[in-house]
């Protein structure tokens, strides 16, 4: 687009929103005289602008919420679209679920904590258990297999807290499923993946709790690119770390 076109667009917008100064008004008048479509466009866009006025909030209020969806929503969407790709094993319904069931599925995959007894949310032990008869857990394979649950072995640690983890490879990234017990309530823990260069990719965070917790976090990094799973304090102090096996290519 030429500079003249951009200037024309700018003046039209300013006219629609009543922002012209005297010099610009004269400039726009000249444009109108040479091109009758200018006024037609102003009228059309002003009609749109007038309609938008119905969304104007009260004084001082915001007219648009820029909320971000929770990281868990992606997993919930995949889980609710059976056969569309790699679904979170614990949240795949066999038919369109009821609203409460769907909400539970989202909670199960959420970064937010799910206390023991909430029901329905599968923890790491259940996900990796050979005794589980759930059809959902049928996907198996070596590290990097889409939808398969990959147990994680943390390095030995003197910390008495009990932390179990498993990974699930997805087309959209990597999910870490955590069972945690014994970490101080209220303390923030960051979950990060490290790639081959040691670059950290955040997967989310959770709070320590007085009860055993199950949570799931996601990161936009493919399993084949992940080398290390780390749980750490916000200051970088490592709480748990696991070297992960390479994905066969």
């Amino acid at each position: 687009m030429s500079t003249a076109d951009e200037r024309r667009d700018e003046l039209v917008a300013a006219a629609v929103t009543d922002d012209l100064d005297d010099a610009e008004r004269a400039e726009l008048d000249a444009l109108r005289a040479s091109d009758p479509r200018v006024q037609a466009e102003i009228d059309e866009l002003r009609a749109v602008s007038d309609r938008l006025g119905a969304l104007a909030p009260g004084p001082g209020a915001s007219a648009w919420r820029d909320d971000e969806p929770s990281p868990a929503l992606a997993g919930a969407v995949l889980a609710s679209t059976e056969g569309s790709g790699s679904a979170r094993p614990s949240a795949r319904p066999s038919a369109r679920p009821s609203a409460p069931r769907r909400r539970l599925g989202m909670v199960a995959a959420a970064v937010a904590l799910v206390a023991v007894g909430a029901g329905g949310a599968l923890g790491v032990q259940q996900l990796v258990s050979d005794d589980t008869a759930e059809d959902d857990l049928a996907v198996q394979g070596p590290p990097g297999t889409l939808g398969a649950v990959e147990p994680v072995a943390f390095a030995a640690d003197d910390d008495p807290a009990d932390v179990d983890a498993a990974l699930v490879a997805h087309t959209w990234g990597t999910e870490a499923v955590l069972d945690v017990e014994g970490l101080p309530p209220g303390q923030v823990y960051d979950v990060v993946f490290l790639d081959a260069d040691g670059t950290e990719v955040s997967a989310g965070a959770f709070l320590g709790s007085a009860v055993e917790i199950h949570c799931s976090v996601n990161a936009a990094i493919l399993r084949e690119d992940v080398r290390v799973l780390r749980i750490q304090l916000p200051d970088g102090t490592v709480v748990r770390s696991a070297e992960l096996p390479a994905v066969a290519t």
Partner: protein
Amino acid sequence: MALSLALPVASPPDVGGRRVAGAVARLAPEEPGRPGATERAGSGEQVGMGDDELDVAAAYRLHGRDLFGFAVNATQDRHLAEECVQDTFTRAWQARARFDPARGSLRTWLFAIARNVVVDHVRARRRRPLRAVGDDELARVPDETDQPERLDAHMTLLWALAQISEPQRRVVVAVRLEGLTYEQLAERDGVPVPTLRTRMFHALRALRAILEEEEGDA
């Protein structure tokens, strides 16, 4: 105006004398926007579609955030909005055989589904005595028991606003809805006034195209 939208979507709108795909028309030339917003209807290159199959992961990655933006502004309830997005993809998955890329972009199709889903949820919530959002927030969602056309118009505008690019929407929201001057917005966002005005121009044109297309389908 009908609340239900015909699926799959109608032909792309005519914008500025050019016959273009709806989503493409909603981008300012200087703003390439997110990848999903550049889908071209009828090109056979639908992002989020592969081998005639809906790739939900890719579709969510490209459009999920904007669909959520529409839903959360329409419902004023984060949890309900996430449920709406999940329902949107569920319905899309179930109806994937009916999606015709020759008639419109995947993005436009998903937004059409989302609008029906959100309206359904808002109506359902109105029927429940217990409401999970504050009175102030609820008051911002028109009650169709009094004026059904208000809810329809409100949803339509939010739906259209959610589909344009974020930089364009920021200008419309700040200047047209919240009453900032271009100069104030330029100072706040560090973007020159001419750029903001140009974004407003393209935003209004994109909104016009979206609204005309929707009203043509209704």
